[in-house]
């Protein structure tokens, strides 16, 4: 069983919802990332999504765009990101890491080379936002061969037919994009999301994560009501931006924000247990 599947199985047994923070690797400085990841785990992260910086993040809103720009100012490359994961793994062997990003840096490395290095570093899953299932045959095959889960997105615009295809390709969990828009844009509508998740659950037994539009404990708790995992990104990245010149305070501040969501989700999980 993959580290991601194991993680979700454990949480399910405990009646808990997973909390998945996203941060962009190397933002605002390369050395900050590994301590930050440990702080996120301490604050209650179950899985971590680590963003590979890209020059043209066309699915992201301004908050994550700027995070990419800050990381790229320091020339943070995909190989360095893998190095960060490797370093994180020196102290943490349990928390699954999903790399999230765009196709081109992985293309530039070559799928085979990327898969080998990612496996060696301790990466558990990969989500490439601009590679839909119809373009991912070769990539998926190579990731499968290296036991790295390929995570796919489902959106409000995804038809029932596509959901079925995506479900058949997906590994680890499925990421439901709760709004039509870019990351960090609008607030999500829980009842709308709930309907889509119900539809999706008919097609798959994989855990369902929900991201985009979760900003605080309240919205995190509301989503935990209907999803197996709550993904939070732009809110944390905004906090990183605010602490870009107070680096010593940064990990604690971001972790504090995540802990707030953790408490809200736990309270909700307990209430429904």
């Amino acid at each position, binding site marked *: 069983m993959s580290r991601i599947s194991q993680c979700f199985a454990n949480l399910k047994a405990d009646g808990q919802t997973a909390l998945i923070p996203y941060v962009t690797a190397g933002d605002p400085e390369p050395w900050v990332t590994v301590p930050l990841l440990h702080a996120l785990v301490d604050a209650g992260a179950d899985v971590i999504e680590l963003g590979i*910086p*890209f*020059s*043209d*993040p*066309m*699915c*992201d*809103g*301004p908050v994550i*765009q700027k995070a990419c*720009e800050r990381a*790229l100012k320091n*020339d943070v*490359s*995909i*190989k360095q990101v893998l190095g960060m994961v490797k370093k994180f793994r020196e102290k943490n062997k349990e928390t699954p890491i999903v790399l999230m990003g*765009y*196709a*081109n*840096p*992985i*293309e*530039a*490395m070559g799928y085979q080379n990327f898969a080998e290095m990612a496996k060696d570093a301790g990466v558990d899953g990969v989500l490439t*936002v*601009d*590679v*839909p299932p*119809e*373009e991912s045959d070769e990539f998926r095959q190579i990731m499968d061969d290296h036991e790295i889960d390929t995570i*796919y*997105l*489902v*959106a*409000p*615009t*995804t*038809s029932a037919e*596509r959901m079925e295809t*995506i479900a058949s390709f997906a590994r680890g969990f499925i990421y439901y*994009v709760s709004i*039509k*828009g*870019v990351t960090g*844009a609008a607030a999500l509508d829980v009842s709308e999301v709930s309907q889509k998740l119900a539809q999706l659950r008919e097609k798959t037994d994989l855990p369902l994560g929900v991201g985009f539009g979760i900003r605080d404990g309240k919205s995190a708790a509301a989503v935990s009501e209907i999803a197996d995992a709550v993904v939070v990104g732009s809110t944390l990245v905004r906090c990183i931006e605010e602490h870009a010149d107070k680096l010593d305070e940064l990990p604690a501040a971001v972790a504090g924000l995540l802990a707030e969501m953790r408490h809200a989700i736990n309270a909700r999980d307990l209430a429904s247990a």
Partner: protein
Amino acid sequence: MLEQHIHDYFKNFPDSRGHFGPYGGRFVGETLMGAIYELEQAYQQYRDDPDFLAEMDKDLSTFVGRPSPLYLAENWSQKLGGAQIYLKREDLNHTGAHKVNNTIGQALLAKRMGKNRIIAETGAGQHGVATATVAARLGMECVVYMGAEDVERQAQNVYRMKLLGAKVVPVESGSRTLKDALNEALRDWVTNVDDTFYIIGTVAGPHPYPAMVRDFQSVIGREAKQQVMEKTGKLPDALLACIGGGSNAIGLFYPFIEDESVAMYGVEGAGHGIETGQHSAPLSAGIPGILHGNRTYLMQDENGEIIETHSISAGLDYPGVGPEHAWLKDIGRANYVSVTDDEALAAFHELTRTEGIIPALESSHALAYASKLAPTMSSDQTLVINLSGRGDKDMHTVAAMAGLNF
């Protein structure tokens, strides 16, 4: 390999998934996939629909002024002392460039799909103006994304778009140029996907855009083929066009692809010189990768990050190129070459003085390469250059090179 691919080229490329060999495809976020399939379906439905084609032809004829003439540049041909040079006069189109051929097609398609909000990206502003023009005429809402740096450089085109009723949004992210405008237009589309039609200005983006924009621009090559046959009684020996994204080039090339005797030259912007790294010539000096919805040659660093480009002409200042050009390069059907800013500028002045035609700086790249190629050919050979736009928009840039400021 060449013969095998050229035989039945029209039937085989792109394939049903929008692939030209390894290039093209649909590399966008899941939220847009539904919209892309919806567009593909609508395009399949209308591309051969007699009413749709009749409406488009009428607009191309009475609104744009097609067919555009094929002009024999006698003075210049004589001066170069080789091939007879014909200019396909896309500069005479309404709005001053070939861009409008495509915006008319896409806007009419948008109308039939019931989408009343149009978005577009623009670099120099030519595609933005061509989009704002058709949106004004069809009574559609129009938002144009333009890199903040280009907004400053191209104030006149910004004002033209505003006069036409479009909203121009300066894009402050990234390098603040065309590629960032494209990113921002994609972000708008994903947010307003239900009522919005994205009119992409070149043969890039996810399938079906590269094939659809090519089809709309192919009117250039179809007319040129007929005109050159009428004038010379034979196919031309060579075709030349400048390449940014590559829409004017594919428009001229496409109807000739299966005519193997016709050589094709796509001319990229070598900027300050390929060796300086400051250029916009991905086919000449880039490597394949994925950007803006398709796999193609890109200007990128070893980590797969897109690098900034340079060209004297804003219309060529783009790090990617249409995927069909990438394929035509790999199979050897078209030649991709480049000329520097200085060479393009010299050709700009040359045509202006010898023929009384002021070309766009983009088109001047094709002219510059023609001035090298024509003398190597004989006087019974013919060469057709796509004069894709007129130079009025470049007065500011050219004057500044001469030390003048308006």
